[in-house]
Protein backbone atom coordinates (compact mmCIF):
# COMPACT_ATOMS: atom_id res chain seq x y z
CA UNK A 1 0.00 0.00 0.00
CA UNK A 2 1.72 3.12 -1.14
CA UNK A 3 -0.88 5.58 0.08
CA UNK A 4 0.10 9.06 1.19
CA UNK A 5 -1.43 9.29 4.62
CA UNK A 6 -1.89 12.47 6.61
CA UNK A 7 -0.20 12.55 9.97
CA UNK A 8 -1.16 15.05 12.62
CA UNK A 9 -1.36 15.15 16.37
CA UNK A 10 -4.57 13.82 17.89
CA UNK A 11 -7.51 14.49 17.96
CA UNK A 12 -8.26 13.51 14.41
CA UNK A 13 -11.91 14.49 14.39
CA UNK A 14 -13.08 18.03 13.89
CA UNK A 15 -15.92 19.41 15.88
CA UNK A 16 -18.89 21.18 14.35
CA UNK A 17 -17.85 24.68 15.45
CA UNK A 18 -16.18 27.04 13.01
CA UNK A 19 -15.54 30.76 13.17
CA UNK A 20 -17.46 31.47 10.00
CA UNK A 21 -20.31 29.21 11.15
CA UNK A 22 -20.61 31.07 14.41
CA UNK A 23 -20.52 34.45 12.69
CA UNK A 24 -23.21 33.39 10.25
CA UNK A 25 -25.41 32.23 13.09
CA UNK A 26 -24.98 35.56 14.83
CA UNK A 27 -25.87 37.41 11.65
CA UNK A 28 -28.90 35.17 11.30
CA UNK A 29 -29.96 35.96 14.84
CA UNK A 30 -29.72 39.69 14.12
CA UNK A 31 -32.01 39.46 11.10
CA UNK A 32 -35.28 39.75 13.07
CA UNK A 33 -34.07 42.89 14.79
CA UNK A 34 -32.85 44.33 11.48
CA UNK A 35 -36.16 43.64 9.79
CA UNK A 36 -37.96 45.17 12.75
CA UNK A 37 -35.78 48.26 12.46
CA UNK A 38 -36.74 48.77 8.83
CA UNK A 39 -40.41 48.04 9.44
CA UNK A 40 -40.55 50.44 12.35
CA UNK A 41 -38.38 53.24 11.08
CA UNK A 42 -38.48 53.05 7.32
CA UNK A 43 -36.11 53.13 4.41
CA UNK A 44 -33.51 55.36 5.98
CA UNK A 45 -32.91 52.74 8.63
CA UNK A 46 -32.07 50.27 5.89
CA UNK A 47 -29.58 52.73 4.45
CA UNK A 48 -27.95 53.18 7.82
CA UNK A 49 -27.65 49.41 8.15
CA UNK A 50 -26.15 48.98 4.69
CA UNK A 51 -23.78 51.92 5.05
CA UNK A 52 -22.54 50.63 8.38
CA UNK A 53 -21.89 47.11 7.12
CA UNK A 54 -20.28 48.31 3.91
CA UNK A 55 -18.01 50.67 5.77
CA UNK A 56 -16.99 48.00 8.28
CA UNK A 57 -16.10 45.48 5.59
CA UNK A 58 -14.32 48.07 3.44
CA UNK A 59 -12.36 49.44 6.41
CA UNK A 60 -11.17 45.98 7.33
CA UNK A 61 -10.11 45.18 3.79
CA UNK A 62 -8.36 48.51 3.31
CA UNK A 63 -6.52 48.34 6.60
CA UNK A 64 -5.39 44.76 6.12
CA UNK A 65 -4.18 45.54 2.62
CA UNK A 66 -2.33 48.62 3.88
CA UNK A 67 -0.44 46.69 6.55
CA UNK A 68 0.14 43.76 4.19
CA UNK A 69 -1.84 41.22 6.16
CA UNK A 70 -4.23 38.61 4.87
CA UNK A 71 -7.66 40.08 4.16
CA UNK A 72 -10.11 38.23 6.39
CA UNK A 73 -13.46 39.86 5.64
CA UNK A 74 -14.65 36.41 4.63
CA UNK A 75 -15.05 35.40 8.26
CA UNK A 76 -17.98 37.84 8.52
CA UNK A 77 -16.90 39.34 11.81
CA UNK A 78 -16.77 42.82 10.27
CA UNK A 79 -20.31 42.35 8.98
CA UNK A 80 -21.49 41.68 12.52
CA UNK A 81 -19.72 44.75 13.85
CA UNK A 82 -21.36 46.83 11.16
CA UNK A 83 -24.79 45.43 11.91
CA UNK A 84 -24.47 45.87 15.65
CA UNK A 85 -23.25 49.43 15.33
CA UNK A 86 -26.11 50.31 13.00
CA UNK A 87 -28.68 48.76 15.29
CA UNK A 88 -27.41 50.86 18.17
CA UNK A 89 -27.74 54.17 16.28
CA UNK A 90 -30.78 56.42 16.11
CA UNK A 91 -32.56 55.58 12.87
CA UNK A 92 -32.42 59.13 11.51
CA UNK A 93 -28.67 59.75 11.66
CA UNK A 94 -26.99 61.08 8.52
CA UNK A 95 -25.12 58.32 6.72
CA UNK A 96 -21.64 59.63 7.50
CA UNK A 97 -22.23 58.69 11.13
CA UNK A 98 -22.42 54.90 10.61
CA UNK A 99 -19.71 55.09 7.96
CA UNK A 100 -17.18 56.80 10.19
CA UNK A 101 -18.37 54.91 13.26
CA UNK A 102 -17.80 51.55 11.56
CA UNK A 103 -14.44 52.66 10.24
CA UNK A 104 -13.37 53.66 13.72
CA UNK A 105 -14.76 50.47 15.22
CA UNK A 106 -12.93 48.21 12.81
CA UNK A 107 -9.70 50.05 12.23
CA UNK A 108 -9.01 51.44 15.66
CA UNK A 109 -10.82 49.17 18.09
CA UNK A 110 -10.03 45.94 16.30
CA UNK A 111 -7.46 45.85 13.49
CA UNK A 112 -4.81 48.06 15.02
CA UNK A 113 -4.66 45.72 17.99
CA UNK A 114 -4.18 42.66 15.84
CA UNK A 115 -7.47 41.81 14.21
CA UNK A 116 -9.83 38.99 15.10
CA UNK A 117 -9.44 37.80 18.64
CA UNK A 118 -7.43 40.76 19.89
CA UNK A 119 -9.83 43.65 20.33
CA UNK A 120 -9.73 44.97 23.84
CA UNK A 121 -13.30 46.28 23.89
CA UNK A 122 -16.38 45.49 21.84
CA UNK A 123 -15.63 47.20 18.49
CA UNK A 124 -19.23 48.13 17.76
CA UNK A 125 -19.60 49.76 21.15
CA UNK A 126 -16.28 51.55 20.76
CA UNK A 127 -17.53 52.92 17.45
CA UNK A 128 -20.77 53.95 19.06
CA UNK A 129 -18.94 55.70 21.90
CA UNK A 130 -16.82 57.54 19.34
CA UNK A 131 -19.74 58.82 17.28
CA UNK A 132 -21.60 59.67 20.45
CA UNK A 133 -18.75 61.93 21.47
CA UNK A 134 -18.19 63.26 17.95
CA UNK A 135 -21.73 64.08 16.88
CA UNK A 136 -23.67 64.20 20.10
CA UNK A 137 -26.52 66.21 18.60
CA UNK A 138 -27.25 63.59 16.00
CA UNK A 139 -26.93 60.76 18.47
CA UNK A 140 -29.41 62.28 20.86
CA UNK A 141 -31.98 63.84 18.58
CA UNK A 142 -32.21 62.00 15.25
CA UNK A 143 -35.10 59.80 16.20
CA UNK A 144 -37.86 58.63 13.89
CA UNK A 145 -41.41 57.95 14.96
CA UNK A 146 -42.14 54.28 14.67
CA UNK A 147 -44.49 53.36 11.83
CA UNK A 148 -44.96 56.99 10.92
CA UNK A 149 -41.46 57.42 9.45
CA UNK A 150 -41.38 61.07 10.41
CA UNK A 151 -38.41 62.61 12.04
CA UNK A 152 -39.24 62.97 15.69
CA UNK A 153 -37.58 65.45 17.93
CA UNK A 154 -37.88 64.95 21.59
CA UNK A 155 -36.59 62.51 24.04
CA UNK A 156 -36.73 58.75 24.13
CA UNK A 157 -38.68 57.17 26.98
CA UNK A 158 -35.44 56.69 28.91
CA UNK A 159 -34.55 60.30 28.31
CA UNK A 160 -37.93 61.40 29.61
CA UNK A 161 -37.48 59.14 32.59
CA UNK A 162 -34.19 60.84 33.37
CA UNK A 163 -35.51 64.35 32.97
CA UNK A 164 -38.90 64.10 34.56
CA UNK A 165 -38.70 60.99 36.70
CA UNK A 166 -41.75 59.61 34.91
CA UNK A 167 -41.69 57.01 32.19
CA UNK A 168 -44.26 57.65 29.49
CA UNK A 169 -47.09 55.21 29.70
CA UNK A 170 -46.10 52.42 27.35
CA UNK A 171 -47.84 49.10 27.42
CA UNK A 172 -45.84 45.90 27.50
CA UNK A 173 -47.07 45.21 23.99
CA UNK A 174 -45.71 48.55 22.83
CA UNK A 175 -42.39 47.79 24.39
CA UNK A 176 -42.23 44.32 22.87
CA UNK A 177 -43.08 45.45 19.37
CA UNK A 178 -40.94 48.52 19.67
CA UNK A 179 -43.52 51.24 19.37
CA UNK A 180 -41.32 53.90 20.90
CA UNK A 181 -38.50 56.27 20.06
CA UNK A 182 -35.10 54.73 20.37
CA UNK A 183 -32.11 53.29 18.54
CA UNK A 184 -32.87 51.26 15.44
CA UNK A 185 -32.37 47.81 16.86
CA UNK A 186 -33.11 48.31 20.51
CA UNK A 187 -36.83 48.96 20.43
CA UNK A 188 -38.28 45.71 19.13
CA UNK A 189 -37.65 43.56 22.18
CA UNK A 190 -39.54 40.63 20.71
CA UNK A 191 -37.19 40.41 17.72
CA UNK A 192 -34.16 40.74 19.99
CA UNK A 193 -35.38 38.04 22.36
CA UNK A 194 -36.03 35.75 19.42
CA UNK A 195 -32.49 36.20 18.17
CA UNK A 196 -31.02 35.95 21.64
CA UNK A 197 -32.90 32.76 22.47
CA UNK A 198 -31.71 31.27 19.19
CA UNK A 199 -28.11 32.00 20.06
CA UNK A 200 -28.46 30.50 23.52
CA UNK A 201 -30.12 27.34 22.26
CA UNK A 202 -27.44 26.92 19.59
CA UNK A 203 -24.77 27.20 22.27
CA UNK A 204 -23.24 30.31 20.71
CA UNK A 205 -23.68 32.66 23.62
CA UNK A 206 -23.66 31.93 27.32
CA UNK A 207 -27.03 32.70 28.94
CA UNK A 208 -25.18 33.84 32.05
CA UNK A 209 -24.17 37.16 30.49
CA UNK A 210 -27.61 38.50 29.57
CA UNK A 211 -29.05 36.90 32.70
CA UNK A 212 -26.52 38.62 34.95
CA UNK A 213 -26.80 41.88 33.07
CA UNK A 214 -30.58 42.13 32.91
CA UNK A 215 -30.94 40.52 36.32
CA UNK A 216 -28.88 43.13 38.13
CA UNK A 217 -30.52 45.91 36.15
CA UNK A 218 -33.96 44.59 37.07
CA UNK A 219 -33.24 44.04 40.75
CA UNK A 220 -31.27 47.25 41.11
CA UNK A 221 -33.94 49.37 39.48
CA UNK A 222 -36.60 47.67 41.54
CA UNK A 223 -34.76 48.47 44.77
CA UNK A 224 -33.41 51.92 43.99
CA UNK A 225 -35.42 53.05 40.99
CA UNK A 226 -37.95 55.23 42.72
CA UNK A 227 -36.32 58.25 44.30
CA UNK A 228 -37.27 58.51 47.91
CA UNK A 229 -38.70 55.02 48.21
CA UNK A 230 -37.11 51.59 48.04
CA UNK A 231 -38.34 48.43 46.39
CA UNK A 232 -40.81 50.33 44.29
CA UNK A 233 -38.86 50.82 41.12
CA UNK A 234 -40.11 49.46 37.82
CA UNK A 235 -37.49 46.86 37.06
CA UNK A 236 -39.35 45.35 34.14
CA UNK A 237 -39.63 48.62 32.26
CA UNK A 238 -35.99 49.29 32.99
CA UNK A 239 -34.87 46.23 31.11
CA UNK A 240 -37.34 46.72 28.29
CA UNK A 241 -36.35 50.34 27.72
CA UNK A 242 -33.11 51.50 26.22
CA UNK A 243 -30.43 49.26 24.80
CA UNK A 244 -30.29 46.75 27.66
CA UNK A 245 -31.64 43.76 25.76
CA UNK A 246 -29.64 44.56 22.63
CA UNK A 247 -26.49 45.07 24.68
CA UNK A 248 -27.02 42.17 27.01
CA UNK A 249 -27.59 39.52 24.35
CA UNK A 250 -25.49 40.75 21.44
CA UNK A 251 -22.82 43.15 22.62
CA UNK A 252 -21.71 41.94 26.04
CA UNK A 253 -21.51 38.39 24.73
CA UNK A 254 -18.68 39.11 22.27
CA UNK A 255 -16.24 36.24 22.83
CA UNK A 256 -13.05 38.19 22.74
CA UNK A 257 -14.07 40.68 25.39
CA UNK A 258 -15.86 38.35 27.77
CA UNK A 259 -14.27 35.91 30.23
CA UNK A 260 -13.47 32.33 29.27
CA UNK A 261 -15.07 30.68 32.30
CA UNK A 262 -18.79 30.31 32.91
CA UNK A 263 -18.63 31.86 36.35
CA UNK A 264 -16.47 34.67 35.02
CA UNK A 265 -19.06 35.42 32.37
CA UNK A 266 -21.78 35.64 34.99
CA UNK A 267 -19.73 38.14 36.97
CA UNK A 268 -19.03 40.13 33.84
CA UNK A 269 -22.72 40.34 32.98
CA UNK A 270 -23.58 41.35 36.50
CA UNK A 271 -20.82 43.94 36.55
CA UNK A 272 -22.03 45.47 33.31
CA UNK A 273 -25.55 45.59 34.67
CA UNK A 274 -24.28 47.24 37.81
CA UNK A 275 -22.37 49.98 36.00
CA UNK A 276 -25.33 50.57 33.71
CA UNK A 277 -27.53 50.88 36.77
CA UNK A 278 -25.19 53.42 38.33
CA UNK A 279 -25.11 55.56 35.21
CA UNK A 280 -28.85 55.38 34.66
CA UNK A 281 -29.85 56.18 38.19
CA UNK A 282 -27.12 58.50 39.37
CA UNK A 283 -25.09 59.49 36.32
CA UNK A 284 -25.84 62.31 33.93
CA UNK A 285 -26.72 60.14 30.93
CA UNK A 286 -30.16 58.57 30.56
CA UNK A 287 -28.61 55.42 29.11
CA UNK A 288 -25.58 53.61 30.40
CA UNK A 289 -25.46 50.31 28.55
CA UNK A 290 -22.65 51.31 26.21
CA UNK A 291 -20.32 52.35 28.99
CA UNK A 292 -21.36 49.58 31.34
CA UNK A 293 -20.35 46.96 28.81
CA UNK A 294 -17.22 48.81 27.73
CA UNK A 295 -16.02 49.05 31.32
CA UNK A 296 -16.60 45.36 31.92
CA UNK A 297 -14.79 44.57 28.69
CA UNK A 298 -11.78 46.28 30.24
CA UNK A 299 -12.30 44.28 33.42
CA UNK A 300 -12.43 40.94 31.61
CA UNK A 301 -8.69 40.15 31.79
CA UNK A 302 -8.89 40.84 35.52
CA UNK A 303 -11.86 38.50 35.90
CA UNK A 304 -10.03 35.85 33.90
CA UNK A 305 -7.05 36.17 36.17
CA UNK A 306 -8.97 35.51 39.34
CA UNK A 307 -11.91 33.35 38.32
CA UNK A 308 -10.29 30.00 37.69
CA UNK A 309 -12.25 26.73 37.74
CA UNK A 310 -11.41 24.27 40.50
CA UNK A 311 -9.43 21.63 38.68
CA UNK A 312 -10.29 17.93 38.85
CA UNK A 313 -9.00 16.54 42.11
CA UNK A 314 -8.37 19.93 43.75
CA UNK A 315 -9.94 18.85 47.02
CA UNK A 316 -7.00 16.53 47.65
CA UNK A 317 -4.50 19.38 47.34
CA UNK A 318 -6.67 21.49 49.67
CA UNK A 319 -6.69 18.66 52.22
CA UNK A 320 -2.92 18.26 51.89
CA UNK A 321 -2.37 21.96 52.48
CA UNK A 322 -4.66 21.90 55.50
CA UNK A 323 -2.78 18.91 56.87
CA UNK A 324 0.55 20.61 56.29
CA UNK A 325 -0.63 23.72 58.10
CA UNK A 326 -2.04 21.71 61.00
CA UNK A 327 1.12 19.63 61.16
CA UNK A 328 3.26 22.75 61.28
CA UNK A 329 1.63 24.03 64.41
Amino acid at each position, binding site marked *: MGEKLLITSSPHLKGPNSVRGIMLEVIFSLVPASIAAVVLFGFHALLVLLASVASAVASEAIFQKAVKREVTVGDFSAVITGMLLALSLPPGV*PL*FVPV*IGSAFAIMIAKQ*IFGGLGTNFVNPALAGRA*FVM*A*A*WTMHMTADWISPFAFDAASGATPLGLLKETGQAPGLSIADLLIGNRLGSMGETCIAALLLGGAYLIVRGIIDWRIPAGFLGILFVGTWIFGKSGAYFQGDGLTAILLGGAVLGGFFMATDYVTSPVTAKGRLYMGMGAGFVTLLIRLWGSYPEGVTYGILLMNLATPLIDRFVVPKYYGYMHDVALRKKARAGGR
Partner: protein
Amino acid sequence: MNGKRSLLHDFTKGFIEENATFRMVIGMCPTLAITTSVVNGFWMGVAVIFVLTVSNVLVSALRKQTPDEIRIPVFVILIAAPVVIVELVMKAYMPAMYATMGVFVPLIVVNCIIIARSEAFAYRNPVLNSLMDGLGIGGGYTINLVVIGGIREFLGTGQIVFGSRAFPAKPFFEPAAVMLTPPGGFVTLGLLMTILNIVIQRSEQKKAAREAAATAHD
Protein backbone atom coordinates in the same frame (compact mmCIF):
# COMPACT_ATOMS: atom_id res chain seq x y z
CA MET B 1 34.30 62.83 14.76
CA ASN B 2 33.59 65.77 12.50
CA GLY B 3 32.65 68.62 14.81
CA LYS B 4 30.63 70.50 12.21
CA ARG B 5 28.59 67.46 11.15
CA SER B 6 27.82 66.69 14.76
CA LEU B 7 26.47 70.21 15.25
CA LEU B 8 24.16 69.93 12.29
CA HIS B 9 23.11 66.46 13.40
CA ASP B 10 22.33 67.77 16.87
CA PHE B 11 19.95 70.17 15.22
CA THR B 12 18.27 67.86 12.75
CA LYS B 13 17.82 64.88 15.02
CA GLY B 14 15.09 66.69 16.91
CA PHE B 15 12.78 66.56 13.93
CA ILE B 16 12.52 62.88 13.17
CA GLU B 17 15.03 60.55 14.77
CA GLU B 18 14.63 62.00 18.25
CA ASN B 19 11.21 63.49 17.77
CA ALA B 20 10.11 64.48 21.26
CA THR B 21 6.48 63.49 20.96
CA PHE B 22 6.47 60.52 18.61
CA ARG B 23 9.79 58.86 19.27
CA MET B 24 10.93 59.81 22.73
CA VAL B 25 7.35 60.23 23.98
CA ILE B 26 8.11 63.00 26.45
CA GLY B 27 6.26 66.19 27.26
CA MET B 28 2.89 64.59 26.56
CA CYS B 29 0.67 66.59 28.92
CA PRO B 30 0.86 69.95 27.20
CA THR B 31 0.92 68.19 23.86
CA LEU B 32 -2.50 66.75 24.43
CA ALA B 33 -3.92 69.73 26.23
CA ILE B 34 -2.79 72.53 23.97
CA THR B 35 -3.33 71.01 20.54
CA THR B 36 -6.97 71.87 20.24
CA SER B 37 -5.99 74.47 17.69
CA VAL B 38 -3.08 75.24 15.40
CA VAL B 39 -2.28 78.69 16.77
CA ASN B 40 -2.27 77.43 20.35
CA GLY B 41 0.10 74.68 19.38
CA PHE B 42 2.31 77.03 17.42
CA TRP B 43 2.80 79.57 20.20
CA MET B 44 3.38 76.87 22.77
CA GLY B 45 6.00 75.46 20.48
CA VAL B 46 7.67 78.83 20.15
CA ALA B 47 7.67 79.20 23.93
CA VAL B 48 9.25 75.80 24.30
CA ILE B 49 11.93 76.54 21.69
CA PHE B 50 12.88 79.65 23.62
CA VAL B 51 12.89 78.03 27.04
CA LEU B 52 14.59 74.85 25.85
CA THR B 53 17.34 76.65 24.00
CA VAL B 54 18.06 79.13 26.81
CA SER B 55 17.99 76.49 29.51
CA ASN B 56 20.13 74.12 27.47
CA VAL B 57 22.72 76.80 26.96
CA LEU B 58 22.74 77.80 30.61
CA VAL B 59 22.91 74.23 31.87
CA SER B 60 25.65 73.41 29.44
CA ALA B 61 27.62 76.54 30.32
CA LEU B 62 27.44 75.72 34.00
CA ARG B 63 27.79 72.01 33.66
CA LYS B 64 31.33 71.81 35.00
CA GLN B 65 30.36 73.84 38.04
CA THR B 66 27.19 71.99 38.86
CA PRO B 67 27.67 69.20 41.43
CA ASP B 68 26.06 65.96 40.36
CA GLU B 69 24.05 65.54 43.55
CA ILE B 70 22.12 68.78 43.22
CA ARG B 71 21.92 68.99 39.48
CA ILE B 72 18.13 68.55 39.23
CA PRO B 73 17.23 71.53 41.43
CA VAL B 74 19.84 73.53 39.51
CA PHE B 75 18.17 72.55 36.23
CA VAL B 76 14.79 73.61 37.54
CA ILE B 77 16.08 77.05 38.49
CA LEU B 78 17.76 77.49 35.13
CA ILE B 79 14.57 76.44 33.38
CA ALA B 80 12.28 78.54 35.53
CA ALA B 81 14.07 81.72 34.59
CA PRO B 82 13.30 81.68 30.85
CA VAL B 83 9.80 80.44 31.63
CA VAL B 84 9.13 83.52 33.72
CA ILE B 85 10.45 85.63 30.86
CA VAL B 86 8.08 83.90 28.44
CA GLU B 87 5.19 84.37 30.82
CA LEU B 88 5.81 88.08 31.22
CA VAL B 89 6.32 88.64 27.50
CA MET B 90 3.14 86.74 26.63
CA LYS B 91 1.14 88.56 29.28
CA ALA B 92 2.33 91.85 27.87
CA TYR B 93 2.14 91.29 24.14
CA MET B 94 -0.27 88.39 23.63
CA PRO B 95 -2.75 88.57 26.51
CA ALA B 96 -5.48 86.67 24.65
CA MET B 97 -3.19 83.79 23.81
CA TYR B 98 -1.80 83.82 27.35
CA ALA B 99 -5.32 83.54 28.72
CA THR B 100 -6.10 80.66 26.36
CA MET B 101 -2.97 78.72 27.29
CA GLY B 102 -3.65 79.33 30.94
CA VAL B 103 -1.76 77.20 33.40
CA PHE B 104 0.24 75.44 30.70
CA VAL B 105 2.62 78.37 30.36
CA PRO B 106 4.04 78.18 33.86
CA LEU B 107 3.85 74.41 33.55
CA ILE B 108 6.55 74.57 30.92
CA VAL B 109 8.87 74.53 33.93
CA VAL B 110 8.07 70.87 34.54
CA ASN B 111 7.73 69.89 30.92
CA CYS B 112 9.58 66.60 30.60
CA ILE B 113 11.20 67.65 27.35
CA ILE B 114 13.12 70.47 28.87
CA ILE B 115 14.32 68.72 31.98
CA ALA B 116 15.05 65.56 29.97
CA ARG B 117 17.24 67.43 27.50
CA SER B 118 19.04 69.19 30.35
CA GLU B 119 19.80 65.90 32.00
CA ALA B 120 20.46 63.78 28.95
CA PHE B 121 22.22 66.26 26.70
CA ALA B 122 23.02 69.74 28.00
CA TYR B 123 24.67 68.50 31.18
CA ARG B 124 27.06 66.36 29.15
CA ASN B 125 27.72 68.35 26.04
CA PRO B 126 29.33 71.65 25.00
CA VAL B 127 27.33 74.84 24.78
CA LEU B 128 27.10 75.09 21.01
CA ASN B 129 25.86 71.52 20.70
CA SER B 130 23.33 72.12 23.43
CA LEU B 131 22.14 75.21 21.60
CA MET B 132 21.56 73.22 18.42
CA ASP B 133 19.89 70.46 20.38
CA GLY B 134 17.52 72.92 21.97
CA LEU B 135 16.65 74.49 18.63
CA GLY B 136 16.21 71.13 16.99
CA ILE B 137 14.13 69.39 19.61
CA GLY B 138 12.11 72.52 20.16
CA GLY B 139 11.62 72.97 16.44
CA GLY B 140 10.54 69.39 16.01
CA TYR B 141 8.20 69.75 18.93
CA THR B 142 6.65 72.86 17.43
CA ILE B 143 6.00 71.04 14.19
CA ASN B 144 4.42 68.18 16.17
CA LEU B 145 2.11 70.56 17.97
CA VAL B 146 1.13 72.31 14.78
CA VAL B 147 0.39 69.04 12.98
CA ILE B 148 -1.60 67.52 15.81
CA GLY B 149 -3.33 70.81 16.44
CA GLY B 150 -4.14 71.14 12.80
CA ILE B 151 -5.70 67.74 12.56
CA ARG B 152 -7.68 68.10 15.75
CA GLU B 153 -8.86 71.60 15.01
CA PHE B 154 -9.79 70.82 11.42
CA LEU B 155 -11.70 67.65 12.22
CA GLY B 156 -13.09 69.03 15.45
CA THR B 157 -14.34 72.40 14.26
CA GLY B 158 -14.34 72.06 10.51
CA GLN B 159 -11.88 74.90 9.98
CA ILE B 160 -8.49 76.23 11.00
CA VAL B 161 -8.53 79.71 12.49
CA PHE B 162 -5.65 82.20 12.23
CA GLY B 163 -6.62 85.25 14.20
CA SER B 164 -9.53 86.70 12.28
CA ARG B 165 -9.26 84.44 9.23
CA ALA B 166 -10.61 80.90 9.00
CA PHE B 167 -9.78 78.26 6.41
CA PRO B 168 -12.13 77.21 4.92
CA ALA B 169 -14.52 80.05 5.49
CA LYS B 170 -17.30 77.61 6.29
CA PRO B 171 -16.83 73.99 7.20
CA PHE B 172 -17.87 71.67 4.40
CA PHE B 173 -18.58 68.73 6.69
CA GLU B 174 -20.04 68.22 10.11
CA PRO B 175 -17.12 68.47 12.51
CA ALA B 176 -16.60 65.73 15.10
CA ALA B 177 -16.49 67.42 18.49
CA VAL B 178 -14.74 64.42 19.99
CA MET B 179 -11.49 65.46 18.30
CA LEU B 180 -11.22 68.39 20.65
CA THR B 181 -11.57 66.16 23.67
CA PRO B 182 -8.85 64.00 25.22
CA PRO B 183 -9.94 60.78 23.47
CA GLY B 184 -9.64 62.50 20.14
CA GLY B 185 -6.22 63.79 21.14
CA PHE B 186 -5.00 60.35 22.11
CA VAL B 187 -6.28 58.74 18.95
CA THR B 188 -4.65 61.38 16.78
CA LEU B 189 -1.42 61.10 18.69
CA GLY B 190 -1.42 57.33 18.46
CA LEU B 191 -2.09 57.28 14.75
CA LEU B 192 0.58 59.86 13.96
CA MET B 193 3.06 57.97 16.10
CA THR B 194 2.23 54.77 14.23
CA ILE B 195 2.69 56.38 10.85
CA LEU B 196 5.99 58.04 11.74
CA ASN B 197 7.37 54.85 13.23
CA ILE B 198 6.30 52.77 10.24
CA VAL B 199 8.02 55.24 7.91
CA ILE B 200 11.22 55.18 9.96
CA GLN B 201 11.14 51.40 10.25
CA ARG B 202 10.65 50.91 6.52
CA SER B 203 13.45 53.36 5.67
CA GLU B 204 15.77 51.58 8.09
CA GLN B 205 14.84 48.25 6.54
CA LYS B 206 15.63 49.66 3.12
CA LYS B 207 18.96 50.99 4.38
CA ALA B 208 19.82 47.63 5.93
CA ALA B 209 18.87 45.85 2.73
CA ARG B 210 21.06 48.21 0.72
CA GLU B 211 23.99 47.67 3.09
CA ALA B 212 23.52 43.90 3.02
CA ALA B 213 23.49 43.97 -0.78
CA ALA B 214 26.63 46.14 -0.78
CA THR B 215 28.56 43.76 1.52
CA ALA B 216 27.32 40.78 -0.46
CA HIS B 217 29.04 42.17 -3.50
CA ASP B 218 32.41 42.38 -1.75
